[in-house]
């Protein structure tokens, strides 16, 4: 009887350990992706280039969205400050979509994303004639992967020096 109880407890503990360790492993993977994505917006820096020190060149979007996140607004404010300091520089805002949408709709979506960035730059004093918008839809991904992380890197508006 006693032996049975001991065995049962041991088994329970063992099972519990197994479950816990499984959880721990899963959590680690989740944190890894979470480190690079918030919701489904990319927050990593793998693909980001810099227009100047502290001035990232791109902002990222959620699926089907063109709303600027807090981080995106911060990036664009830095870009606006840099453009004010360099009044001779003009830019092209290149809007992109991920591969999980129809080609024509994605062309329009890329245009809408680049315009969201343009509008924000304008509210920080950048004249619209210094900004050209160019949508590539899903034609120019930076990551060729077929997974949520790759798609999040591809949903972007990139500010490129035009001169």
């Amino acid at each position, binding site marked *: 009887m006693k032996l049975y109880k001991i065995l049962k407890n041991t088994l329970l503990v063992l099972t519990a350990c197994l479950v816990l360790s499984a959880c721990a492993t899963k959590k680690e993977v989740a944190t890894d992706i979470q480190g690079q994505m918030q919701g489904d917006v990319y927050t990593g820096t793998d693909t980001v280039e810099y227009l100047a020190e502290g001035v990232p060149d791109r902002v990222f979007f959620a699926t089907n969205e063109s709303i600027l996140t807090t981080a995106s607004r911060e990036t664009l404010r830095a870009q606006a400050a840099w453009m004010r300091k360099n009044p001779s520089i003009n830019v092209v805002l290149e809007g992109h979509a991920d*591969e999980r949408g129809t080609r024509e*709709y994605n062309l*329009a979506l890329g245009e809408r994303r680049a315009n969201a960035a343009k*509008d924000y730059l304008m509210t920080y004093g950048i004249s619209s004639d210094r900004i050209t918008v160019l*949508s590539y839809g899903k034609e120019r991904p930076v990551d*060729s*992967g077929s*997974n949520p992380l790759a798609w999040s890197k591809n949903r972007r508006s990139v500010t490129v020096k035009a001169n």
Partner: protein
Amino acid sequence: MIKKILILFFILIPISANALIEVDITRGNLNPLPLAVSPLSIDEVSRKSFEKILKKENIGSEISNIVENNLRTTGLFNPLDKKAFLQAPDIANLKPRFEDWNLIKAQALITGKVNYVDDKLRVEFRLWDILAAKEMMALAFTTVPNNWRRVGHIISDKVYERLTGEKGYFDTRIIYVSEEGPKIQRIKKLAIMDQDGANNKFLTLGNELVLTPRFNPTSQMVTYLSYFKNMPRVYLLDIETGTQEVVGDFPGMTFAPRFSPDGKKIIMSFAKDGKSDIYTMDLENRIVEKITNHPSIDTSPSYSPDGKYITFNSDRSGYQQIYVMKNDGSDVKRISFGNGLYGTPVWSPRGDLIAFTKLHKGKFYIGVMRTDGSGERLLTENYYQEAPSWSPNGRVLIFYRETKTNSKGEGFSAKLWSIDLTGYNERQIKTPTDASDPSWSSLLSN
């Protein structure tokens, strides 16, 4: 570039009106009609003449191979093995021994003859009903020898029409985007080929990105999107002369072009300030009209065959859905209400259906619905596929499909596929390179 083709075409023997064999194409055909395509017979003088001109040893067999291949790909016919044929081609063309053809279970027989006459190719062919022991049709064509493939396609169209009661789709071409290179830096070129993949030609060099070519239903014109000088604009291309021009003078991206059914207008989207609206431009007087006016994305417009209505894609409800409106932009009605997102609506040339792409739970579908949105039917499911284009008889859809890449981002491909409206007979259309954005032409000869 591609010369207009003159085919002299006359009927030898009037066709009797009473229906004989019939093939029902409205259902998925699980029992394709067994039929024998006898090689077209050819006399030795003609054979040698064509061998010299066309570098084909036996042009009669080549033409009958085209017919056989076309009929097989419909899934409606089962061309029998030539080795089983008991009667010689020349004699069969004069008078088939019906009991011999019956023995190998053929229900229909195609015979014919090729001659070299005054530097021209003369082809006659006959379609026979084996069970009724009767001739169903007899026709003859005379044309320049270089048109031999088209003769095969025209024979196929005539046989298809006689046996199914509907126009065929073999004497047609497909314009598409040829793709090469890594996924993050694809090189894209306009390309054109016959419906069966023969005569592939590239129309642009790949220096600029090109997308979504579409045929004019009434001429050899094509409209497409080009990133020439990094300015995405709708272009008009004459594939006979190679001349091209920008459509309209828009201060921004124009895209998603299509012709009106009479070929006189181009309908497309113009994107400005984050909004995309639908516009038309009359190709004769260059007058531009704004058709939709909404802060949403309105794109992928397609006319009904009578030109009175337009179906299009809009996210005005918050997500991509399909709408129908009158051709002046009034009376806008949403027609897609199923679960998921809907895009790329295309009106069937028969007028009764709209084909679309649907995205639901991470899968892409090609489907059709009635023009009021009822009767949604999904024909095929895959990781990624979109952009259906109708065969001119409205019985087959061609579209493109992309593969999922592996964990290293490798293994990407894009291919053309077709499927019958019935949901049967899904097959890949072979292309020399990867391919996307197919558009089917009208019948070249009528």
